């Protein structure tokens, strides 16, 4: 149980860190730490618990921003599901592939963000040009932040796995992995 609580704790810390980054860093260089959290929750074949945590983190971001309710929750949930699908294929346990994956996914997340807004909240869409300007800087800083965070996530996920709080609802695929 303590492993799961620690995962929750790091989610809160990352949310606060993102709030600080928003105050300190220029707009074009702000990392999306909540997205890193959601992506990491899909590692090790993250089960339903990881998905719920990812949606929860997105929901908190929705509440603390002016976004249409559910937008970030959907994006974070999708990020978690995508990592779960791609984890094994891309070998995301090492820092370099993980950072590259996070960077590329952040770019993809901008595209998903634009598409989702146009589908579900067309009255508050951001121009594609605006997203294109912001995407490279955000992808770079998010990838840079993701690499050192991987070690923390791996340790917490292993702990949660070991104390039994993580795989309770995890899929069979996650259990069979080395």
């Amino acid at each position: 149980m303590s492993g799961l609580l620690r995962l929750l704790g790091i989610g809160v810390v990352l949310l606060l860190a993102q709030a600080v980054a928003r105050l300190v860093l220029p707009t074009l260089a702000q990392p999306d730490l909540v997205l890193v959290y959601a992506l990491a929750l899909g590692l090790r074949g993250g089960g339903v618990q990881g998905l719920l945590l990812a949606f929860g983190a997105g929901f908190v971001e929705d509440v603390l921003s002016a976004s249409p309710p559910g937008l970030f929750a959907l994006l974070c949930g999708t990020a978690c599901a995508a990592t779960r699908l791609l984890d094994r294929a891309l070998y995301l346990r090492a820092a370099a592939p993980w950072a590259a994956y996070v960077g590329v996914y952040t770019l993809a997340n901008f595209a998903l963000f634009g598409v989702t807004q146009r589908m579900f909240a067309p009255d508050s869409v951001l121009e594609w040009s605006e997203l294109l300007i912001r995407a490279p800087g955000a992808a770079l800083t998010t990838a840079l932040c993701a690499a050192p965070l991987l070690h923390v996530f791996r340790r917490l996920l292993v702990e949660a796995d070991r104390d039994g709080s993580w795989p309770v609802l995890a899929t069979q695929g996650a259990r069979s992995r080395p």
Partner: protein
Amino acid sequence: MSELLRRFRFALCYFALASLCALGMASRKAPAEIGFAPRLVLNLSLPLERMVTLPLSELRGAWGDYMALVGVREENERLRGRLARAEEENHQYREAILSSERFQKLAGFRAQREIPMVPANVIHQDLSPWFQSLIIDQGAAAGIRPGMPVITDSGVVGLVSGTTPGASKVLLVVDPQSRVDAYVERTRARGTVRGTSGHDCDFEYVLRHENIEEGDLLLTSGLGTVYPKGLVVGRVASVDRKTSGLFLGAKITPAVDFTRLEEVFVILEQRQIPAEESFSAADEGLWPAAATAPKGQVADAPKAHAADVPKAPVRGLPKRAPAAPKPAAVAPKPGEPPAAPQ
């Protein structure tokens, strides 16, 4: 069956939650009371936010104070010069206001009355870089309702988009969801100020032949349903006449520096202008109390015309400003003597 459910549990769970999110986005309503779950999250997270952001802003303040001492003598000289110019300008404005008041009495306009306002502290900035909002420490308990305008002494900040008893969420004018009907003080050219999610805004739907220049001051027209007339929105940063079409493009620098915003005022009155009377009511500077307000300010551009905007906006915020009669002419430019009443 149970084996099948277990096997596809992750996918089922994902689609269920994703559908909930999509439903939430699609069923978004106008500004309203924040629901139970978001309120719970907000109440739990705000103390943590304060713990982190308060020391940070204190640190920034201390650093800013220290840096302010560097070159203070030169700045002092410069500020003295500016103060002298501002005093002269202030004198001219005072004269203009006195003239305007005399004229208003003659025309039989109603006396000005106080606008009830609530001061509030900014306790949280928007977490996402894609939207522009903030949270203030006054809410429904202080009489704040969704749709109420938020201002500072510099100008328009935004409008209240949601409330809890102890806090309110404010949608800033630079948010892409925000629309403010405004006009250029110098030429009365009308248009709509739209946020871009950056630090500036677009001034849209301004006819190509209108005379707009860099540095022109933009004021709220009062023709929408949220902001009273004559509040400062910002200044024209650049004008683009290259694009084809009926309208020109202009970038606006907001009057308020949202990155350093600490205290704001919430105007506790909301305007509601019936659709069939919207033009005449706004034209006469009426401001009926109470009502609801939609998200952003809806411009009533097709009904109005630049020439019909009352021509003596009063920028003093605490007083309600009825429109001056049409012959009251133009407010004086800085450096020029005030227009004499006719």
